[in-house]
């Protein structure tokens, strides 16, 4: 399905995102079970998260602290009193028969996220609310011998803390939604409340999509699109849904309010259930939990512990390290990379060189080995030591690359490698002069040309010196001494 640009131009899309972020606590939201990923099915469980009769929830304090930090990052107001509410529905992986969520009094509301559009323009997207809830378990429909007859349920995930962040319908395109989700993810990662690992389901996104004639005052009927499990799918699904709705309206049809599921294989969204068949969740205040009250003292204590967020970090990288805006943008793309860069810059004493190395050789080597920066065999401190050696003139940039390659496969310090391999840069005047004299004697023709005004030949002569010194001669010194000798 594809709609002509002109037709697209006739309509305006209105999009709001509902994003679930898994909070990176050690234990679950209402019990002391670990939140770990990859344990044997139904082992990280207890009477509380199994929904055993008589078991009661007790709110994890760390969850509240993370919620306040997330709310702060989202520019939200944190409610002094928020209320947990039961969201009732039946599903085999929901052992209590209800989810403990928040309804009319969420922990945070009235926030915003500033995004940068592909055009470079800035736009402010409203955050309606952020509320806490417990995750359900997992239904496993296939992979077992009797999967044709049974569904298996793993309740390890049950009770994992989630914060659901709901945007205002302020987004107008798939690109804007993409930028919003990117920014949201960065904020959550930087305030250290979530890994936001989409593959592990730590970041899940649903989109409410509608279209209206450009300039129309009222919103069109929206469809909720689910199963947007990657940034790419988010974009594809929204684009598909916008086109679908435009074609429907252009064809004389009407959009109905419904839930649609994105199918990444076909690239289409398909109807899941209509509004008539929608759940009535029968929310009511959770009687097993007291209202959550966050006093000013606690609030400021939590906020005092907020890590630096990426917009601030980006600005600081530019002023403190003299980085170009583009480099700063690249380096803050993940919290891990920015932290790596800062450590390398601190140890190496040179931010620009550190930036070049992190974005260049390090990024290349990581990519070649399919490694994350957190798995880098060369630590930030080690890279810093290498940068320091370059800065002190002990090695040339080219030698540094050789040493870096050797650091990748050993745990040794760059200095140790340099000494072991005899790669220390030759900056001793007499040693360089000796090699230079030999090179000049061996190349009388080029010397003549140089003296005759063809100074470009210096490059060749310097190259010969470098070659004779096995790359160890300090190229700057070679150049200067050559000039002095031949003038």
């Amino acid at each position, binding site marked *: 399905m594809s709609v002509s640009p002109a037709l697209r131009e006739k309509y305006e899309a209105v999009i709001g995102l509902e994003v679930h972020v898994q909070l990176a606590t050690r234990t679950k939201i209402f019990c002391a079970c670990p939140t770990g990923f990859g344990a044997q099915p139904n082992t990280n469980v207890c009477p509380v998260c199994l929904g055993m009769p*008589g078991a*009661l*929830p007790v709110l994890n304090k760390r969850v509240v602290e993370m919620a306040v930090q997330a709310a702060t990052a989202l520019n939200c107001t944190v409610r002094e009193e928020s209320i947990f509410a039961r969201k009732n529905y039946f599903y085999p992986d929901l052992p*209590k028969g*209800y989810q403990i969520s928040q309804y009319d009094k969420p922990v945070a509301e009235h926030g915003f996220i500033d995004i940068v559009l592909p055009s470079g323009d800035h736009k402010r997207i409203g955050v309606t609310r952020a509320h806490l809830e417990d995750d359900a378990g997992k239904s496993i429909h296939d992979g077992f011998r009797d999967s044709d007859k049974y569904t298996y349920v793993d309740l390890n995930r049950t009770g994992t803390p989630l914060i659901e962040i709901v945007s205002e319908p302020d987004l107008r395109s798939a690109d804007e939604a993409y930028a919003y989700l990117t920014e949201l993810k960065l904020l959550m990662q930087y305030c250290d409340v979530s890994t936001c690992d989409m593959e592990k389901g730590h970041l899940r996104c649903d989109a409410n999509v509608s279209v209206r004639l450009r300039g129309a005052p009222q919103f069109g009927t929206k469809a909720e699109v689910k199963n947007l499990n990657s940034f790419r799918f988010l974009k594809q699904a929204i684009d598909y849904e916008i086109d679908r709705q435009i074609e429907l309206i252009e064809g004389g049809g009407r959009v109905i309010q419904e839930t649609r599921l994105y199918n990444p294989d076909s690239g289409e969204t398909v109807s899941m259930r209509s509004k008539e068949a929608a759940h009535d969740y029968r929310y009511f205040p959770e009687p097993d939990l007291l209202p959550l009250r966050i006093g000013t003292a606690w609030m400021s204590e939590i906020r005092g512990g907020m890590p630096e967020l990426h917009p601030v970090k980006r600005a600081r990288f530019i002023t403190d390290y003299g980085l170009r805006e583009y480099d700063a943008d690249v380096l803050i793309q993940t919290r891990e990379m920015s932290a790596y860069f800062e450590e390398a810059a601190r140890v190496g004493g040179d931010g620009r060189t550190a930036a070049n190395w992190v974005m260049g050789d390090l990024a290349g080597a990581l990519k070649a080995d399919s490694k994350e920066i957190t798995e880098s065999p060369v630590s930030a401190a080690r890279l810093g030591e290498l940068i320091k050696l370059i800065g002190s003139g002990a090695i040339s940039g080219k030698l540094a690359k050789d040493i870096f390659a050797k650091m990748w496969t050993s745990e040794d310090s760059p200095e140790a490698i340099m000494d072991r391999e005899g790669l220390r840069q030759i900056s001793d005047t007499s040693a360089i002069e000796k090699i230079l004299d030999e090179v000049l004697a061996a190349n009388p023709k080029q010397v003549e040309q140089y003296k005759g005004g063809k100074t470009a030949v210096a490059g060749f002569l310097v190259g010969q010196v470098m070659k004779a010194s096995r790359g160890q001669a300090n190229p700057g010194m070679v150049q200067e001494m050559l000039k002095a000798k031949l003038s």
Partner: protein
Amino acid sequence: MNVASLTIDQVRAGLRAKEFTATELAQAALDFAAAENAKTNAYLHFSAERALSAAAEVDAALGRGEDPGPLAGVPIAVKDVILVKDVRNTCASRLLEKFVAPYDATAVQRLEAAGGVIIGKANCDEFAMGSSNENSAFGPVRNPVALDRVPGGSSGGSAAVVAQGTAVVSLGSDTGGSIRQPASFCGVVGVTPTYGRVSRYGLVAFASSLDHIGPFARNVRDAATLLQSIAGRDPADSTSAFAPVADYSGAMTGDIRSMRLGLPKEYFAGLESETGGLVEKGIAALRRLGAEVREVSLPNTEYAISCYYVICTAEASSNLARYDGVRYTSRAAGANSLAGMYRETRGEGFGAECKRRIMLGTYVLSHGYYDAYYIKAQKVRTLIARDFANAFKEVDALITPVSPFPAFKLGEKLDDPMQMYLSDIYTITGDIAGIPCMSVPCGATHDGLPVGMQILTNHFEEAAMFRIAEAFERNGGIAAA
């Protein structure tokens, strides 16, 4: 030893004098209970293994010269909605017929830590929903005082075992009168403590904001001792209170002179004459003991039943959702879809009263009805609580009847839920307000049917409540009038 009439003090004395060991007492209680159960069906199952091992520990502690605690060796029954680890917990429901508790309720832990010996699980209405114990999936309980009559409900079994003497004390639960009404029907003491005073952890939830665990005993002192052992803050229950637990035993001085007692006028209209007459006698006795009695008003009382049935059914509809056939409940055979499995499991598994309340509760929480029912009921709840708060500015305690009528015949009100619900008309308000309240025996009708008098005090004022009840009891109850 005569198990049937033992008090906690007598158990302690008997153990100390080596008249019997805790193990002998436990075995005697188990034997007696098994023999009596044919008459009353008050126990659903026994926990002999656990009882004998707890008793052996008490004996061992005594042998080492240690104090095994205030409940040392005391045979106790526990309502079958309170979890005792490795013992079946059916909630008197088909759905949980085979369910074995995977952990101990906090109250059970504390009771055993105090030396208590749990001999069995008491019958009750299914999921504690009912006022006659006729809603048990495993048959009704017969009132030991008059076997053709109900023991009251929902904690009918817990009241009956204490009345028949097969347990010295027992634990029940109260959501809308489920301890006090059976206590009055069976002629024993029944206490509903302040909401939050006893941890609900391990009490199978019926209506979480109204559920309480509380004691039954044959005298006020034993009830107070049992409550003393299980009360207090529990980190596993977010709604459990931090307030310190008073010394109940020290409060029972027998002296109630100059205590101000209020008679809420709304509770004395429409009372069956014989019950009313007995409660009047009880009040006269209290006056004779030096209490100052005056009339007070709780103007929102008439809305209590409606308010209660909205809130309790709403919460119940959600609390009972987990019994869905997926994990620990029974599962209907033959369903070929998920919805079908839910429908058939729950359709077969729940009794009529549970279904009625699930439907009512689902309805009042439904979109479009929530404000009119649930929100309104919460507002009424606030008003009822305010009525009590105002009354307690004037008086130290309130005295009322427990039930409009004494124990009725089995089957008598089974087909009329509204009549059945009315038997809780005086007890529901205490739960709604979350205040402590109790039933203390207040004589019997000419047919020999016991009647209870209700004493209610302000939040966490259990000590004052026990003082009044114990003074009344010490002076012979209505005989003091």
